[in-house]
């Protein structure tokens, strides 16, 4: 059963390409189309499904039924929304910078789509199998900061501009803990190649052994998230990814109770839909790289490959929705302080923890490394976190306040 879907899909692709074997140029075009088109379409479909999932999930958290009129359980709601968006008037503010106002949605979509291409969706299902895929991913995904700022700046609206500036400050700050927490994984895997990072997350001596139990658990227990440094790294990565993707509780750029819709304020109609989709697909890309780095990528028992990847991706997104339904939005200063004074030092410490674990594993084997890593390494992280949160507390004024005019 393992990798069955992936192999079939790869086979299907080869079969289609074989029709064009006599025309090398056409074959290349078909190959490129086969690499990109299904990816783009499936992520757009996933976007539509996620908007439904998000609305349903938030509704249930708030004790409402959510959309339930269009189609079964409201499943066709995203299509209805899409049609509505298409039919809406596209309003461009008169004094806006029209060119950049037009370009911003496209600029957001492009890095999001490229980022998705770097994800190893399954065994052999990899649109851009670069050796340095992970570093490329982070380089490309930080481009969407520019798009968001473009949208904010070109609208010539104070709320848009505020949203854009918040986005730049936030995305640049959170990029650092994001990458630093990924560094630990790259160190341990010894490769920047996404497929190799995924492959490093199996217990290789168990997977090939033929013993059913070992086959089963070898594909789960190897995930980085089950290692002390991986667990901590995953938490840092997830928090930073929420901020990178403008998701609640870090949705300051589009804080609707403060600055209308931030950089989206002056967008309407289909451009708005594209911007919205771009943000969701960037969120998908970040969640996907999180799955690749920490949750074992497409590794998993029984149906290893695409099904596991999709399952993990949507579970991660469900957690994002759950968090959105739970946590209130941060203040701007809290947001920046959190990134620089808390997440950043901890992410650096985590790199040392990973090195410590690696050393122990080499010297005394996995079991002792696990024990020491969880007890001492994780304990050290906890202590550091507590110390940091004490340090970062604003000084409390203990003297009693004196009201001079009253007394």
């Amino acid at each position: 059963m393992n990798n069955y879907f992936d192999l079939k899909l790869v086979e299907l692709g080869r079969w289609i390409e074989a029709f064009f074997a006599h025309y090398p140029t056409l074959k290349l075009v078909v190959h490129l189309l086969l690499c990109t088109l299904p990816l783009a379409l499936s992520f757009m479909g996933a976007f539509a499904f996620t908007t439904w999932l998000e609305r349903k999930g938030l509704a249930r958290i708030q004790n409402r039924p959510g959309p339930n009129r269009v189609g079964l359980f409201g499943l066709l709601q995203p299509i209805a929304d899409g049609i509505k968006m298409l039919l809406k008037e596209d309003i461009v503010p008169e004094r806006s910078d029209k060119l950049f106002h037009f370009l911003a949605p496209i600029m957001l979509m492009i890095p999001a789509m490229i980022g998705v291409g770097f994800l190893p969706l399954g065994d052999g299902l990899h649109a851009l199998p670069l050796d340095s895929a992970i570093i490329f991913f982070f380089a490309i995904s930080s481009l969407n900061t520019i798009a968001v700022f473009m949208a904010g700046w070109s609208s010539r609206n104070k709320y848009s501009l505020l949203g854009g500036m918040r986005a730049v400050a936030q995305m640049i700050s959170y990029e650092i803990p994001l990458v630093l927490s990924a560094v630990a994984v790259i160190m341990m895997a010894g490769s920047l190649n996404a497929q190799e990072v995924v492959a490093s997350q199996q217990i290789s001596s168990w997977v090939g052994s033929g013993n059913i139990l070992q086959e089963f658990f070898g594909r789960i227990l190897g995930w980085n998230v089950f290692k002390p440094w991986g667990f901590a790294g995953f938490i840092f990565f997830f928090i930073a990814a929420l901020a990178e993707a403008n998701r609640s509780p870090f949705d300051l750029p589009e804080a609707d109770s403060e600055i209308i819709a931030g950089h989206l304020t002056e967008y309407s109609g289909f451009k708005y839909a594209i911007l919205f989709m771009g943000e969701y697909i960037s969120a998908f890309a970040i969640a996907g790289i999180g799955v690749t780095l920490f949750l074992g990528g497409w590794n998993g028992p029984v149906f290893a490959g695409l099904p596991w990847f999709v399952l993990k991706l949507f579970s991660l997104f469900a957690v994002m929705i759950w968090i959105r339904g739970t946590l209130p939005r941060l203040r701007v200063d809290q947001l920046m302080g959190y990134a620089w004074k808390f997440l950043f030092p901890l992410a650096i410490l985590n790199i040392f923890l990973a090195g410590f674990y690696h050393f122990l594993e080499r010297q005394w084997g996995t079991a002792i490394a696990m024990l020491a890593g969880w007890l001492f390494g994780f304990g050290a992280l906890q202590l550091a976190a507590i110390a940091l949160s004490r340090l970062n507390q604003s000084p409390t004024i203990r003297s009693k306040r004196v009201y001079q005019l009253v007394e």
Partner: protein
Amino acid sequence: MSLIGKGILKGMGVTAKNFFQSYYRKERLPTVEYPEEKATINQFSRNFPFLLYDGDDPVDGMRCTACTLCERACPPQCIYIIKDKDENGKAILSPRIFDIDTSVCMSCQLCVEVCPYEAIRMDSAFELSNENRFEGLLLNREELLKPNAYYHEIHPLEARETDDRMAAKAALAEAKKKARQKRARLAAKNKPPPGLKKTPPTRKKPPQREKSE
């Protein structure tokens, strides 16, 4: 030593509880799916006024005497009354035209408070949307008239109280009339002055207002 992030986990637990319980506990999903099912209306709810009538015929049983007190009390001036006249041009105590513009009415219930004849009350029907926002929302006399039974149906407590009050008033009026008749009879017995016949006191009519239609 407190675990970092414990508060967040606790909050997530609360939202998860709300999420899952909304599937099997009624009080976690109180939404009423409106067109299919309707919410039960509290008997003290009110929106727009309607006119009450007794008996079977709406126009004959109308309680309103066209005293125009409500018209004058209405803050946004959305009641419009024209008195009825008989063939000789004499005013009859009932309205020929009684309109309430529900697009203007602010549901203050002042008209109900001032009416001395318990003729106007607040309705609680809420499906009032209409295709014509001018004439459709301007309710005329026939649309406003509803039987007392309807009043009992929507506001049972209030309706009973009104009926009791009206019955007490009627009984009092009856008693007064009897006393007056008795007095008159006694007076007639004691000293019958042929030329001085006391007329029963009549109710002072409300001042008439000029109106253009």
